[in-house]
């Protein structure tokens, strides 16, 4: 069943001069977006490779760091983002079918879910700032993983204590000096936590911008069976950002969560 050849090809208003047909334009644009996503895979990939090497090098510190971030919020965020991928895919479907109001609602839905994701992320970042688990000296707070840091709750975020407690629960003993040493190394974990989720959040924000643009164009009724490429490309970008998070969640939040782990 042919879907895209309903209008004349040469005179569609969206056809640009270097292409001979809408078909060629769509094929080229889609391929171009995939090549761009290829570059994004390599960019995030570099970060993932560095993360992997440090995880191997400082495994106990990475366990401790991972334990200190909230797996519930991470889990919730994963579901939120996957749902936003669903609404995005539906938006592409609606654009392809020419259903204007569905397009608008689904793009809006994607944006709302995206905002929820960013909101949860902001809360997580605030928690880390409160516990002084922010590497370096950022915004006036120094990294402090082994002492009480929060004003309301001194002792909160003391990773050295957590390490000792964790070891005690599994029947082993970790001396305090060793726990503090490991807690120092968690600074690397948190560097990567903020870098990876930060870069991801940056891409999300750009995605939100893209969605806004698509929303405006959808409202003007620009998308239909003959031309819905921008929505499709926006979808590709959004799904890619979702995939990055699909990997970030287990890599950052689920390091050795079970009881009795070393």
């Amino acid at each position, binding site marked *: 069943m042919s879907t895209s050849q309903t209008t004349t090809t040469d005179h569609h208003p969206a056809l640009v001069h270097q292409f001979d047909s809408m078909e060629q334009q769509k094929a*080229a644009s889609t*391929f171009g977006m995939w090549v761009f996503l290829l570059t994004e895979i390599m960019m995030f990939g570099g970060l993932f490779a*560095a993360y992997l*090497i440090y995880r191997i*090098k400082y495994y106990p510190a990475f366990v401790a760091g991972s334990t200190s971030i909230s797996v519930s919020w991470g889990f919730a965020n994963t579901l939120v983002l996957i749902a936003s991928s669903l609404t995005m895919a539906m938006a592409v479907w609606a654009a392809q079918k020419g259903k204007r109001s569905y397009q608008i609602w689904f793009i809006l839905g994607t944006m709302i879910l995206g905002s929820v994701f960013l909101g949860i992320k902001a809360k997580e970042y605030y928690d880390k700032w409160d516990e002084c688990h922010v590497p370096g000296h950022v915004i006036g707070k120094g990294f402090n993983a082994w002492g009480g840091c929060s004003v309301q709750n001194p002792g909160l975020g003391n990773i050295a204590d957590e390490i000792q407690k964790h070891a005690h629960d599994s029947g082993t003993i970790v001396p305090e000096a060793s726990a503090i040493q490991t807690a120092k190394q968690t600074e690397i974990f948190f560097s990567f936590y903020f870098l990876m989720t930060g870069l991801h959040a940056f891409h999300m924000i750009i995605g939100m911008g893209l969605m806004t643009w698509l929303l405006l164009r959808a409202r003007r009724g620009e998308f239909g069976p003959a031309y819905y490429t921008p929505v499709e490309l926006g979808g590709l970008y959004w799904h890619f950002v979702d995939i990055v998070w699909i990997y970030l969640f287990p890599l950052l939040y689920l390091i050795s969560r079970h009881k009795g782990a070393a």
Partner: protein
Amino acid sequence: MSTATTAIKPVMPARHYLNDNYGIRSWLLTKDHKRIAVLYLVSITFFFFMGGLFAALIRLELLTPAGDLFTSDTYNKLFSMHGINMVFFFLVPSIPATLGNFVLPIMLGAKDLAFPKINLLSWYIYIFAGFFSLAVMVSGGVDTGWTFYTPLSSGFLRTHVALMAVGIIFAGFSSIFTGLNFIVTVHRMRAPGLTWGRLPLFVWSNYATSLIMVLATPVLAITLILLAMERTFHIGVFDPRYGGDPVLFQHMFWFYSHPAVYIMILPGMGVISELVTCFSRKRVFGYSFVAFSSIAIAVFGFLVWAHHMFVAGISQYSAMVFSLLSMAVAIPSAVKIFNWTATMYKGSISLDTPMLYALGFMGLFTIGGLTGVMLAALGMDVHIHDTYFVIAHFHYVMVGGMVSAYLGGLHFWWPKITGRMYPEAPAKLAAIITFIGFNLTFFPQFILGYLGMPRRYHAYPPEFQVLNVLSSAGASVLAVAFLMPAIYFLWSLKYGPIAGDNPWKATGLEWETSSPPPTHNFHEVPVVTTDPYHYGSDQEVTVVH
């Protein structure tokens, strides 16, 4: 438009891409790949001479054994600026952004690249990156070397590392967008009848280059982002004080920077393929081998990066693997040299200027490539790493190779770009002076390195002075040789003889359209029915009306 009009004097077409529209806005907001190519041509020439200026200062300092012209800190800044300017703002964009941008769509029979606006964006990003970096240089620059090794760069040195990193990141994105554009164009916008097996080798080379640009440059971007973050926010990534690993920086940096050298050389090899066939009047020997060798270089080039790190602390076993792989990557390059030589055999050679540069390339690149294999040998590298041997090696491939190819290509396509021929006698002279000056500059450096003179030092033992003086003398000759084309190319814009559609009687779709081409490249969509390089055959290339 007829093709072979030997009896009639060539005339400039009435309307072409240069006079289709006047005014600064028509240039700064152009979507025409040809105008963007000219914009790039002017910009990279500027950065080439900037890099050359730093080189001149370096060679001046090295005339005497004592470090008397500059302090060591300033000298460190000089070679860093030389490297950064030359690598990121000249070599990486050079052929793809100028000749590639201009000629590639026409070779494919297309009206433009796939994404003309992104092409223009690419130039703007490049200009921003270039002038931002220039501003950083003027306000003190960096002294880390173009390689930015940590922990020097991550916290030890007090220069503008983070800002320079930002400039280079933007230059990288310019490169990524150019590569993306080329890949999509080659896949999706070939003229009817133009199968992959009929593509000019220049297209194959630029396509392979674009693959590398797209796959490697993002890793550089993230590495420099991490470095900038580390410097600015004092987080731990590569700095040992915070638990970081300096060798990791080198792994990530060289993952880009080694394939980057193939980004730099592959387009040059593509140019040489075009020049050797045209000026031997013969089809290339082993077309498939040359085409696939470009892809092989692109792929293999990603597997060898740690040969820059043999003495950095990587494991011995890893070093052996990388050493072996580095030997292997020389093979596709050698295939090209052999095939070009075989192409010339029993060809009808004419020694026009582009061919002089091509011949220079073949000899100098061979020397550079072979010394590369020497460096790939673990045992040798331990002794000659970080000496002038390395510097001589990469200048042979980059200047003797790439810059020769760039100049050859510029001379070859100059009539197509401007409609006018450059003056042949000064051009030939410049080519010869380039060859002499180049060898005088860099051959002594092989010996210096072998004798143990380290790189990046502004003072050296007095026994090295003779060779250094020779090298600096050669550099001044080279400077003259590079200035000459700048002068006569400009001269030819007004006074050069009008070239006509195909002054070289070359094959290729770009020679069938007028010189300069119309804005939309062709008056009729070409249909390709012949193989490339059908020199000496009866088949006449036709254009379907």
